[in-house]
């Protein structure tokens, strides 16, 4: 079972985990907005339609590769503040290795394969966040 959501709604981790509890092992990753360097707000832009399709493809690829019972990807869009949840990735499998590895795969690949762009506001000035070289390397280890 695959669940993908791209929405401005607050992410309910407990509810997402409950949906995933269908087999012996559930793993998850939750990303929160960091307040580094005085970031006051973060805004997420995305490519409607293409984003959902990219996340569906990732979840399907992980489900096939690790024989997952369930996979969930939830990503917030719009404006959010430091400390708020921006992304949730969760997996369910019969055993922990598959669940944990698939979870790491999903968040690594989401960073490079899904069309989202972050804009941060610091001291009243806003700027687009630059992609990090490390993200490409983290995604490449799953090739």
């Amino acid at each position, binding site marked *: 079972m695959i669940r993908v959501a791209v929405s401005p709604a607050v992410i309910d981790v407990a509810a997402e985990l409950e949906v995933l509890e269908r087999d012996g092992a559930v793993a998850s990753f939750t*990303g929160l907005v960091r307040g580094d360097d005085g970031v006051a707000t973060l805004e*997420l*832009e*995305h*490519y409607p*339609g*293409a984003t959902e*399709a*990219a996340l569906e493809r990732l979840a399907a690829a992980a489900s096939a590769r690790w024989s997952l019972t369930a996979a969930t990807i939830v*990503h917030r869009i719009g404006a959010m503040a430091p400390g708020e949840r*921006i*992304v949730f990735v969760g997996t369910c499998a019969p055993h922990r290795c598959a669940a944990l590895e698939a979870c790491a795969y999903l*968040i690594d690949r*989401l*960073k*490079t*394969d*899904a*069309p*989202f*762009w*972050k*804009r941060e506001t610091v001291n009243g000035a806003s700027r*687009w*966040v*630059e*992609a990090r070289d490390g*993200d490409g390397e983290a995604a490449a280890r799953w090739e």
Partner: protein
Amino acid sequence: MRLLYFAWVRERVGVGEEEVSPPASVTTVAELVAWLAAASERHAAAFAEPARLRAAVDQAFVSLDASIAGAREVAIFPPVTGG
């Protein structure tokens, strides 16, 4: 052909989407970008550094040398920064 722009590419071009009819000599995303840049200062500013551009043809991520033959929708944007 429908063009979509995102993030700072959208801001520099000044619109999020537009319809264009490139000549038959324009066959790749890179050629499309060059054709647009030659016609408008805003596009030229947005596309000044092709190495910082990424693209999707009909919602599939592609490299800039990919063909646009038969494409209905081409998106041009900076490297993605989600997650």
